[in-house]
């Protein structure tokens, strides 16, 4: 009797995590569509996609484990992989965009990387 109630609770948790992951994925894509700049689009892209994939993978893992007794660690490994690689790829894309001359949004307030780049060039110039 108690096992069936636990199954019911797990079913509700699976539904909620699937819907939460889908909400984060679609809000991330709306953010990519509507933000004005590459550097602000990356904020919407990496964080929300990490959360969305985590929700859907946790839902799939719990479904396969509770209903069918299949333990598949590859889904959890997928969460770990996205968690590790999404910030790295976002950082690399934003640095490449800045160095290849993509302008900031015209209402941006602060640009600290320009000063760092200027100091770096000043430091490298006397050597050559």
């Amino acid at each position, binding site marked *: 009797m108690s096992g069936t109630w636990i199954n019911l609770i797990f079913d509700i948790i699976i539904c909620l995590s699937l819907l939460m992951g889908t909400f984060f994925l679609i809000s991330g894509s709306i953010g990519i569509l509507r933000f004005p700049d*590459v550097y602000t689009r990356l904020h919407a892209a990496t964080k929300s996609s990490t959360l*969305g*994939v985590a929700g859907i993978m946790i839902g799939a893992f719990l479904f396969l484990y509770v*209903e069918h007794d299949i333990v598949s660690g590859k889904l959890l490994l997928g969460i770990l992989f996205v968690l590790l690689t999404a910030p790295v*790829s976002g950082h690399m894309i934003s640095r490449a965009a800045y160095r290849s001359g993509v302008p900031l949004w015209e209402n941006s307030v602060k640009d600290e990387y320009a000063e760092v780049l200027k100091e770096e060039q000043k430091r490298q110039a006397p050597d050559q």
Partner: protein
Amino acid sequence: MDEILDVTQMLIQLSAIVSIIAVAISIILLLYRATIGPTNPDRAVALDIIGINLMALAGLIAILLVTTKFNDVVLLIGILLFIGTVGLAKFLEKGVIIERDLD
């Protein structure tokens, strides 16, 4: 009790179908940014997030057709996506992907 469990099974199937439709809509929204996008880094970001949505779609299909054969696909898409994004970023930054300064 069995009737309640049948209802919740139906609920899981229904939420999986709703999630598949929503993820497909989000891929269509991202394809707009990947084709129209004003600069090349915009296209790179959109392609990256399209790949992550494909990972989620593989997980949802694995729920719908109860199998474990899609779990390899999830890892494969993740690894290829990371390598592709790093290569695109290096190409956009310098114009070279593999540097040779041996000589």
